[in-house]
């Protein structure tokens, strides 16, 4: 903990709260991944960790390093942008792949293709 002793209390407390909140949200998402029953329900769980879970931890680190003035706060912003943009894309790709596989197997739980008959390829 380099330099943390000089940190004023009114900065340390929000940082601590944000850290625990972010980790807690991430843990809730992880429990959801374990507990929820079907694949399409489980897709919802990780987004807790990647939205506000990640956001809280990044914000905590930004406040911490800005107050200590040890370095520029660039990495957190970049990581935040990267994860916010990429997570929906990967989740959508996996969901579509899952839908495609379920339809090929004729799983009755998934809805049929919209309007058109399925393509033959």
């Amino acid at each position, binding site marked *: 903990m380099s330099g943390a002793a000089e940190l004023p209390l009114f900065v340390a407390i929000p940082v601590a709260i944000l850290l625990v909140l972010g980790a807690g*949200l991430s843990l*809730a*998402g992880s*429990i*959801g991944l374990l*507990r*929820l029953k*079907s694949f*399409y*329900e489980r*897709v*919802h*769980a990780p*987004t*807790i960790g*990647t*939205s*506000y879970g990640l956001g809280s931890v990044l914000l905590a680190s930004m406040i911490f390093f800005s107050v200590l003035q040890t*370095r*520029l706060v*660039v*990495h957190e912003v*970049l990581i935040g942008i990267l994860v*916010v*943009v990429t*997570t*929906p*894309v990967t*989740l*959508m790709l996996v*969901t*579509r792949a899952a*839908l495609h596989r379920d339809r090929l197997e004729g799983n009755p739980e*998934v*809805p049929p*293709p*919209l*309007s*058109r008959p399925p393509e033959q390829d």
Partner: protein
Amino acid sequence: MSRRLLRWVLPHPILSAWLWLMWLLLEQSARPGPLLVGLVVALLGGRAMAMLQPQRVRIRRPGLILKLAGAVLVDVARSNLAVALVVLKPRPERHAGFIRVPLALRNPNALAALACIMTATPGTAWVEFDVEDGELLLHVLDLVDEADWVRIVKDRYEQPLLEIFQ
């Protein structure tokens, strides 16, 4: 002639400028070495983007973006809490399901934005979109009333996106 050369070297000046700035900030120095490498990266990034030939983004009402972003931040926070509650305190009567939402949105950039918003919100997941009919298949974790969700998607997100992009 020189104009065409400039357009070839710098097809996306704003993107290249951002790339250069980010590179220098990550390097945390402005010595000639990082400056030069960053410049090469920025120019290559601009060229690569030009090769992908993206559709030009036309934004009609930039002010509305901030309003939409604020609404999304609030909704994502609310949805975070709702999904965390569903996970930690399961209710037997909750049921998840697919819903279909007819969309008027056709602009690819606007659709991409909507897809990111819907998937980033923990309670909803974008599953499939039919370009011909403009029908969207959504999966909702806590489905109470279908018509309610259709209205939320159309009023809260689609309407602002239509005004911003089209």
